């Protein structure tokens, strides 16, 4: 079971690293922020699996703060970027 969970961890981390290409290539800033949003959710998923693997229920609070972090940075981007557009 633990090796299976570790393999899913590696797959999730690889999905983050593969998504980094979008950050370099993404023409508009909105796409870069989207990628950051996906990585935030992937990190929450990694934490959920890790809390099982390392038997640390405290990681669920860390996952909660990660979810909050992704929301904060995205709202900051949308508000600040849209202010200049009109």
């Amino acid at each position, binding site marked *: 079971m633990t090796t299976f969970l570790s393999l899913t961890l590696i797959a999730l981390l690889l999905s983050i690293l593969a998504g980094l290409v979008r950050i370099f290539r993404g023409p*508009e*800033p909105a796409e*870069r922020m989207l990628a950051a949003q996906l990585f935030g959710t992937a990190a929450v998923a990694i934490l959920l699996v*890790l809390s099982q693997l390392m038997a640390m229920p*405290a990681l669920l609070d860390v996952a909660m*703060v990660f979810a*909050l972090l992704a929301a*904060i940075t995205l709202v900051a981007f949308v*508000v600040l970027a849209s*202010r200049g557009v009109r």
Partner: protein
Amino acid sequence: MTDPLMIFDLLLALAIVALAVASLSVRDLFSMIVLFIIFGLLSALAWVRLSAPDVALAEAAIGTGVTGALLLKTLHHLRYVSGTLGQQTALGVTPVAPVPMGIILANAGFCGLITLGLLVAFLGAPATGPGFDALVAEAMPQSGVEHPVTGVLLNFRAYDTLMEVVVLLAAVIAVWQIERGLSDAPAPVMGEVWQGFARLALPAIVVVGTYLLWVGAEAPGGAFQGGAVLAAVGLLLLLTRAYIPQPAHRGVARGAFVLGTAAFALVAILVAGGGRVAFEYPLEHAKTLILLIEGVVTLSIAVTLAALFHGREPVALSEGGRHDT
């Protein structure tokens, strides 16, 4: 059989170093900030792998969340002031007199030497030094809390934590001296979806912040992480201009800034009354005193971080002043 978790650690380590290089070398400033946010995210995962959940909480909430929002705000201010708002990419502003390439390479060489020295020292160091964990574990029963990191932060090294709250106070005083004026930026149109979400999520985040503060006594959490989560609510209110700081609110804000330091110092001194040294909490009241200090410090940190994000003293300027974001 290499343990697959080790492969995960190697991948994470490579990703962190690659992101550090990428965020410093990419030309577009906005990509730099997004890469930094992801660097902070992955380094918080690394803290978790090093079984340091408290540090991961602090890194995620403060190190990446508040810092990322601050960087985005400063980048926006750069483009607002230099009038290049419409332009998609804001490239780095090269200074009037760029430093000649020779000096830069020399600097890079010296930094390489320093890093090499660090590497040699790290590899040569004894694997696991004695450390303090035995001492802390032995003294934990007198600390009044079960979680060792909170015990260290709020009891054994309380003086250091008091100075940390003073640093936050000094920072907000400095920022209020540097920048003044009311911002006349139009309220962003957030739409009904956001209003619905905000009405649901913001109170929930406040509850999570208070929970983090309370759980700090026996599990990872505590004043700084809880304060940072509450500051996140302040950030959202400031960003969506649900709350616009008015000159009249400065008194309350100043009170909140000083509250954390004052309460911490007051408890430290009062406790020293009955023949005890400062910061030596009486055993039976230790937990209540620690939680009292943590509660007040959390509120003070939340207001201070939000004020640091807002970045200016909300006072009307006489000579026309600078009105922007």
